[in-house]
């Protein structure tokens, strides 16, 4: 059993964290052939039949496709779509834990198999996805991610934005249902701050 790591090994940890944070925050379009090859390899590893692939531009569009495929019909309910959140693999956003396994596999004297390489390829090249017998619903990565103080934040629009225009409105990490709701909240907070200043200076 390994009970400690060397200074040299420890010194490489920040490199892994930086590399995998960049993978997780990537907004480049998915390399679809590589994403499909990696997921196909994961099916093969688990001895599942080779799947076919369908792609959507966002996790929200993907969740609907997944719900439709699961149900075997087009007219799915909001509850059926919402149920897909529990069944999603988050692709690139899973990079945080893959960094740990990659470090262990690549830097420590342990037995390494091909699985870590498959998982690395998936997080590098695929967004959120859903897995079925014979089919995978893949989705693209976001086209923009805005942070402030390491929390999702954009006072002027979507903080997390997808190609199809869907995404998340957020201020300092708190999500809002719409730009209108977020703007109102911003104005209320500004008014409260102004009121407090006026009272304090009176």
């Amino acid at each position, binding site marked *: 059993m390994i009970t400690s790591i060397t200074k040299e090994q420890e010194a490489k*940890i920040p490199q892994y*964290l930086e590399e995998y944070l960049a993978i997780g925050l990537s907004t480049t379009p998915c390399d679809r052939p590589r994403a499909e090859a990696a997921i196909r390899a994961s099916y093969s590893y688990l001895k599942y039949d080779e799947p076919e692939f369908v792609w959507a531009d966002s996790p929200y569009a993907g969740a609907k496709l997944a719900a439709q495929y699961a149900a075997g019909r087009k007219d799915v309910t909001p509850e059926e779509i919402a149920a897909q959140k529990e069944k*999603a*693999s988050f692709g690139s956003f899973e990079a945080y834990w893959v960094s740990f396994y990659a470090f262990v596999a690549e830097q420590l004297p342990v037995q390494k198999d091909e699985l870590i390489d498959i998982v690395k390829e998936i997080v590098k090249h695929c967004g959120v996805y859903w897995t079925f017998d014979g089919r995978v619903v893949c989705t693209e990565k976001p086209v923009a991610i805005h942070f402030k103080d390491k929390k999702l934040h954009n006072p002027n629009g979507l903080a997390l934005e997808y190609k199809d225009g869907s995404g998340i409105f957020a201020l300092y990490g708190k999500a809002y249902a719409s730009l209108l709701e977020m703007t109102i909240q911003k104005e209320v907070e500004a008014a409260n701050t102004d009121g407090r200043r006026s009272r304090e200076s009176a």
Partner: protein
Amino acid sequence: MRKQYSVMLHVFRIEHLFSRGVYVDYDSKVDSNIFYTSDCDNQLRRIKIAIAKEIK
């Protein structure tokens, strides 16, 4: 209903990467906290949670 697999990446993480014997000789307590309290962990997990909340 068509057959849907569990969250496949979690299957790899829990049932394979960690318990298949590949890494059992590594005591993860040594430094896993460095990874699991990092900006990488915090920022990406926050995004995952935010996306999941919006799937409705």
